C-alpha cells in the first residue's frame, strides 16, 4: 500500500457515508490475470487459431468469459466492501524514474473491468456468428483479443507510462480492425486516419505525463494525485498545463471536436468492432482518463475543466446534428456515440464525476446493443444504407424489439438506463449553474431522440427496399442482443437519486477526496424538461419519417434547408485536414525536402567531389609531384582503382587491408608525433 492509498483510507473514514475498505484479498492480488490472459490468448490464436474448428474464435470467447467472470467477482467484492489495491513491479529505472508494470483494483477500475469483460464476452460471442465465412476470422479474433488485453492494460494502469502503453495498444488494435478488410484501400485508409488523429492527440497525453511526472519525481498516478491532494512539491505550478495536455489526449481517443473525425470513418471495420471498441469501451478511454485523474481536475486544475466543458458541449451538439443527416445506419450510431461522449466529457468538465462515469456505464449497454442490432440488420440485408432497408420489423422481430429498447434507452425515456444517466448529467449542469450548457444538453436530448426515431422508422417501418429476403440472425447473435437489451432497461437502476445510489459508491472509492454534489432526490424540473425533449424528438421523428406500408412512396425524405449542406460536408473539417495539412505535407513539402537532399546538400557534396577530382588531375598532370599524387589516389581516384582492388580482394586477401589499415593508422600517428 502506498501513501495515496493511505490518504484515501483516512479521508474515507471521515466521509459521511463511510465505507469499509478492503484490500480485495487474493482476487485483487491475482487481478493481473485479467491483463495477461487476453495477451496469451492473442498469441495462442495467432499460432494455433487456424487449426481449430472455429478458427480461433473459441479461444477468444473463452478468454473473454474468463475476464468477465473474474471482473464480476472483483465487482462484487468491491460492491460489498470497497477495494483499494495497487501493486507495481519495477522493470527498469531510468535516471531516478522507475518504469513499472502493475495493476489497480479499485472502484473505478472494477467498474471498467466489468464493462469491458461483459461487453467483450457478449460481443465476441456475437462475432462468432457475424464473422462466419469471413476472409480471415483467425486474425480478426486475434486482433480483437489484442484489443481487449490492451484495454485492460490501460484500465489497470497504476502509472502513466503503462496507461500510455495500453492507450496506444488499443489504438493499434483499432487500426488493425478498422482496416480488417484491407483489400479495399478505403478501409485501410480509415484505419490510418484513426491512427494518425490519435497519434496527434497522444502528443498531448505524453507531454502531459511529463509535465506531471517531473515535479513529483514519479509516473505513478497515485503519487501524482497524492501530490495534488496534499499540494506538495511544485505540482501546483504545472497542474493546469498537465491537466489540459492530458485532456488533449482524451480528445483523440474519446473523439471530441475537432478530433472526432476519425470515429465515423472507423465504421469501415466489422460491426462487432464498432460495437465493442468504437462505442462501448475504447472510445470511453478518454473519459476514463479524466475520471482516473479526477482529483487533479477537481480543484487544483479546476480551470482546466473549462475547456473540457466547452469541448464536450460543442461535441455533443455538433455530432448529434450530424447523426441526423446520415443514411448509413452505422454512421448514425457513430455520430451518436461522439455526441454521447460529448455528454460524458461535458459532465466531467462540469464537475460531475459520477454522472460522467454513470453515462459511460449505461451508454456501453445501449450503444453496444444498438450496434449489434445494426450489425444484425446489415448481416441480413448486406448493406449499411437505410435507403436499402425498411419494413424489417416483421422478418427480424428480435432485432427490432431489442433495437427499440436500445433506442428508448439512448433517447432517455423513463425508466430505461439512459434516462437516469442523462438526467444526472443535466441535473449537474443545472446545479453547477451552467445554464447555457444545460440548454444545449436539452436540445441535444431532443436531437438524440429525433435521429434515433428516424433510424428506427427508416429501418424497421415502411416497405423493404433492398435486395433478397431479409431474415432474423442466428441465435448466437440474437442472444447477446437480448442480454444487452435487458441491461439497457435495468442498467440505470443502480444510481437512482433518493432510492439507491450504489454506483456512486462503486466508482467513488478513490474520489472521496474531493467534494462532489450528490442530489438527495431528482431535480424534477430538469426531469420534466429532459423527458419532454426526448418525447418531442420521437414525435418529430414519427411525423417526418414514419411510413405506413401503403403510403410509403408518397413523401420524400425531409431535409433541413440551411444546415443540410454544412452537415453533409461534416462542417468541412475533413476537407480542411486533408487539403490543409495532410496533402501538403505528403505532397509538396515532402518532395521539397527530398529535393533539397538531392540537389542542395548532396549538390554540395558532389560538387566538392568533382572539384577535388579536377584539382587532383590538375596537380598530377601539371605539377606531377609523386607525393601528392600518391596521397590523392586514395581519396579522389578510388573509383578508378576499385576494379583493381576488387580483383585483389577476390584472391582472398581481405585481411591484408585490415592489417594495412592498422599499420597505416599507427604510422600516421607516429608521423604526427615525430614531426608534431
Amino acid at each position, binding site marked *: 500500500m502506498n501513501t495515496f492509498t493511505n490518504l484515501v483510507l483516512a479521508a474515507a473514514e471521515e466521509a459521511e457515508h463511510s465505507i469499509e475498505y478492503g484490500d480485495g484479498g487474493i482476487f485483487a492480488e491475482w487481478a493481473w490475470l485479467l491483463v495477461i490472459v487476453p495477451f496469451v490468448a492473442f498469441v495462442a490464436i495467432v499460432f494455433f487459431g487456424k487449426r481449430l474448428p472455429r478458427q480461433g474464435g473459441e479461444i477468444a470467447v473463452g478468454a473473454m468469459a474468463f475476464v468477465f467472470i473474474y471482473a464480476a467477482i472483483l465487482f462484487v467484492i468491491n460492491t460489498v466492501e470497497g477495494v483499494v489495491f495497487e501493486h507495481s513491479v519495477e*522493470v*527498469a*529505472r*531510468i*535516471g531516478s*524514474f522507475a*518504469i513499472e508494470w502493475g495493476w489497480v483494483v479499485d472502484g473505478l477500475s472494477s467498474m471498467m473491468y466489468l464493462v469491458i469483460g461483459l461487453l467483450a464476452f457478449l460481443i465476441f460471442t456475437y462475432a462468432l456468428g457475424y464473422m462466419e465465412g469471413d476472409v480471415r476470422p483467425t486474425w480478426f479474433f486475434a486482433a480483437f483479443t489484442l484489443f481487449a488485453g490492451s484495454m485492460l492494460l490501460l484500465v489497470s494502469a497504476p502509472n502513466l*507510462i503503462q496507461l*500510455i*502503453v495500453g492507450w*496506444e*495498444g488499443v489504438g*493499434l488494435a483499432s487500426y488493425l480492425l478498422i*482496416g480488417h478488410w*484491407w*483489400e479495399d*484501400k478505403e478501409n*485501410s485508409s480509415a484505419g*490510418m486516419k484513426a491512427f*494518425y488523429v490519435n*497519434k*496527434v492527440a497522444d*502528443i498531448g497525453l*505524453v*507531454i502531459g505525463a*511529463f*509535465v506531471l*511526472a517531473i515535479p513529483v519525481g514519479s509516473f505513478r498516478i497515485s503519487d501524482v494525485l497524492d501530490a495534488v491532494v496534499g499540494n506538495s512539491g511544485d505540482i501546483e505550478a504545472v497542474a493546469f498545463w498537465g491537466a489540459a495536455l492530458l485532456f488533449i489526449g482524451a480528445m483523440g481517443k474519446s473523439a471530441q471536436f475537432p478530433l472526432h473525425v476519425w470515429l465515423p470513418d472507423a465504421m469501415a471495420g466489422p460491426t462487432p468492432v464498432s460495437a465493442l471498441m468504437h462505442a462501448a469501451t475504447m472510445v470511453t478511454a478518454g473519459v476514463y482518463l479524466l475520471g482516473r485523474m479526477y482529483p487533479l481536475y477537481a480543484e487544483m486544475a479546476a480551470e482546466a475543466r473549462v475547456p473540457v466543458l466547452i469541448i464536450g458541449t460543442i461535441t455533443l451538439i455538433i455530432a448529434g446534428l450530424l447523426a441526423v443527416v446520415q443514411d448509413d445506419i452505422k454512421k448514425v450510431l457513430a455520430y451518436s456515440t461522439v455526441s454521447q461522449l460529448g455528454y460524458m466529457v461535458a459532465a466531467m468538465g462540469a464537475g460531475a464525476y459520477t454522472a460522467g462515469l454513470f453515462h459511460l456505464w449505461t451508454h456501453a449497454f445501449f450503444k453496444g446493443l444498438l450496434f449489434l442490432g445494426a450489425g444484425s440488420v446489415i448481416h441480413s440485408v448486406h448493406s449499411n444504407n437505410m435507403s436499402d432497408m425498411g419494413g424489417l420489423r416483421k422478418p427480424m422481430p428480435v432485432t427490432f424489439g431489442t433495437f427499440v429498447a436500445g433506442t428508448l434507452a439512448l433517447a432517455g425515456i423513463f425508466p430505461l438506463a439512459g434516462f437516469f444517466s442523462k438526467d444526472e448529467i443535466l441535473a449537474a449542469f443545472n446545479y453547477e449553474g451552467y445554464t447555457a450548457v444545460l440548454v444545449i444538453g436539452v436540445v441535444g436530448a431532443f436531437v438524440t431522440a429525433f435521429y434515433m426515431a428516424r433510424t428506427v422508422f427508416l429501418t424497421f417501418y415502411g416497405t423493404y427496399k433492398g435486395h433478397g429476403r431479409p431474415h432474423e440472425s442466428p441465435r448466437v447473435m440474437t442472444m447477446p442482443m437480448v442480454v444487452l437489451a435487458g441491461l439497457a432497461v435495468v442498467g440505470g437502476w443502480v444510481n437512482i437519486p433518493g432510492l439507491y445510489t450504489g454506483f456512486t459508491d462503486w466508482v467513488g472509492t478513490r474520489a472521496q477526496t474531493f467534494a462532489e454534489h450528490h442530489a438527495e432526490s431528482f431535480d424534477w424540473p430538469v426531469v420534466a424538461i429532459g423527458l419532454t425533449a426526448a418525447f418531442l424528438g420521437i414525435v418529430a421523428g414519427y411525423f417526418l419519417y414514419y411510413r405506413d406500408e401503403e403510403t410509403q412512396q408518397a413523401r420524400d425524405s425531409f431535409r433541413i434547408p440551411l444546415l443540410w449542406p454544412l452537415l453533409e460536408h461534416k462542417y468541412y473539417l475533413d476537407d480542411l485536414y486533408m487539403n490543409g495539412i495532410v496533402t501538403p*505535407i*505528403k505532397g509538396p513539402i*515532402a*518532395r521539397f*525536402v*527530398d529535393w533539397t*537532399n538531392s540537389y542542395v546538400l*548532396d*549538390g554540395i*557534396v*558532389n560538387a566538392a*567531389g568533382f572539384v577535388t577530382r579536377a584539382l587532383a588531375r590538375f596537380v598530377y598532370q601539371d605539377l606531377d609531384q609523386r607525393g601528392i599524387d600518391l596521397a590523392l589516389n586514395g*581519396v579522389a581516384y578510388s*573509383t578508378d582503382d*576499385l576494379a583493381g*582492388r*576488387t580483383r585483389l*580482394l*577476390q584472391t*582472398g*586477401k*581481405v*585481411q591484408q*587491408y*585490415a592489417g594495412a*589499415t592498422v599499420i597505416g*593508422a*599507427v604510422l600516421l*600517428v*607516429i608521423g*604526427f608525433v615525430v614531426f*608534431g
Partner: protein
Amino acid sequence: MGWFDNGWGLSLIVFLPLAGAIGLLLTPRKNEAAVKAISLLFTVATLVLAVLMAFRFDFGNANEFQFGTSLTWIESINSGYHIGVDGISLPLLVLSAFVTVLSVIYSFNHWPEPHNPKGFMGLTLVLATGMNGTFVALDLVLFFVFFELVLLPMYFMIGIWGDKAIMKIPGFNREAETRLYAAIKFFLFTLFGSAFMLLGFLALYFKSGEYGTRTFDIPALIELAPNFTGTFAFLVFAALFLGFAVKVPMWPLHTWLPDAHTAAPTVGSVLLAAILLKLGSYGFIRISIPILPEMAKQWAPAIAILAVIGIIYGSLACLAQTDMKRLIAFSSVGHMGFVMLGIATMTPVGINAAIIGMVAHGVITGLLFFLAGSMSHRYHTRDMARLGGNMKIMPIMGGILGFTAMASLGLPGLAGFWGEFMALFGAYSPLAGLNTTLFRTAMVLGAIGTVLTAGYMLWMLQKVNLGEPSEEWGDQHFHDVDPYEMTAWVPLVVAIVVIGVFPRLVLGATNDAVVSLVTKAFGG
C-alpha cells in the same frame, strides 16, 4: 574463470572474428561448406562469449570498466591496449555480436552477386572485429584504429556486392554505377569526419602532457576533464563532433546514408544500420561528453537543434520516397535524431534513452533491412508503386514486416518506444543551465516527428502489404519466408518484444553507468 575476467575474454570477443577471417583466408574458395562452418563457428563463439560476459557482468558496479586489461602497446606515444566494458558498452557489444551471427546465418541462403562467400564472409568477420573493438577500446588510438577498421570492409561490401544499376547524379550531367558512387561517398564522408576526429585525439594527447605524461587513455583523460576549457576545448569538441556526427549521421552530414544503405547488399545494410551508426553516437557518450563536459554543455543546444531537424527532415524525406529500401534508410536519419536529442539533454534520462534507442534501432531497423532485402530478392523491384498485396502473396513475411514497422514507429510495448519516449522526456527537463524553452520546443517538434514517423510507416505498409496484388505478380510463384530467414529474424522479433516489455535488459546495465557519467561530468 580468471583468464576470462582479466582481459582475455574481452580480447577474444574482439579478435575471434578476425581469427575466423584468417581461417577463411586459408580455406579454398571452392569449399563453401567450410567457409560457412568457419564463419558460423567464430561468430557464434563470439556471441556465446559476449552473452557469458553479460551473465558474469557485475551490474552493481556497472559504472566501472570490467573484464578489462591495460597493456603497453605503442610505448613511444604512450598508447596502451586498454580495453574494458561498462554498463554503457555492454548492451552495444552484445548487440553487435548478436546481429553479426544473424547476418552470417541469413547470408547462407542469400549470397549477393558476384557469388563469393569466402570474400563476403571474410569482410563480415573483419567488420565484426572493428565493431566489437570500438565498443571496448579505452584508448583513443585503439578506438581510432577499430573505428577506421570498420570502414574498409563496408566500403568493399558496397562497392563489390552493391546495387549495379546506373544512377544519374542529381544536378550534374553525369552518371555512375550506384554501388561505386555510394561506396566512395560513404568512404570519403567518413574519412573526412575521422580525419578531424584524429586531429582532436592528437590535440587531447598533447594537451594532456601539460598535466603529466601525455596520454591517449580515455579514463585518464576523463580525470583531466576540468582542465579542458576555452577555445582549445571548443575546437577539439568541434573536431570530434565532425567525426562522430558523420557516422551517426546527423543532419546535414547524413547524405551518404541513404545512398550507402540503399546500394549496399542486404547484410551490409543490416550491419550498417544496426551497428555502424551506433559507433558515432557511442563516441559522443564515451568520449566527447566525459572528456569535454563543459563544451558538451555549450554545444548541447546546437546538437538538439540538428537532432530535431534530422527527425523532421528525415521523416518528411521518407514520405517522398518511392523505393522501399531507401525509405527505410531515410528512417534512420529520423530515429538517430531521437538518439542525438537524448544525448543533447545531457541528463541521465536522455542518455539512457539514447542507448536503449540505439539498441532498439539496431534490432528494428536491422530487421527492416533484412525484410527489404528478402522482398526485393523475390520481387526484383523495390518500387512501392509496383508492390502491394504482399500480405496475400507472402503472409508470413508481410506479417513480420507489419510487426517491425509498428516497432519502428515507436509503438509502446515494443523496443522502439523507450528510446523515443524517454528522449522526449529528457528534453522536457534538460540539464540545469540549458535553455529549457529551446529543449521543450525540440520536444514538441520531436513529438510531431513521431506522428510523421507513423505517417510514413503506415503509408509504406499500405502500399506494400495491403490491397490486392497487382496483376504483374498474378501467375508467379513466391516463396514465403525460408528457414534461414526464419532463423535470422525470429531472434530479432523476440528481442523487440522482450526489450519492449522488459526494458531492464538494457537499462539495467546502462542506468548506473550513465548516472555516474553524468554526475562526474556535470556534478551532482
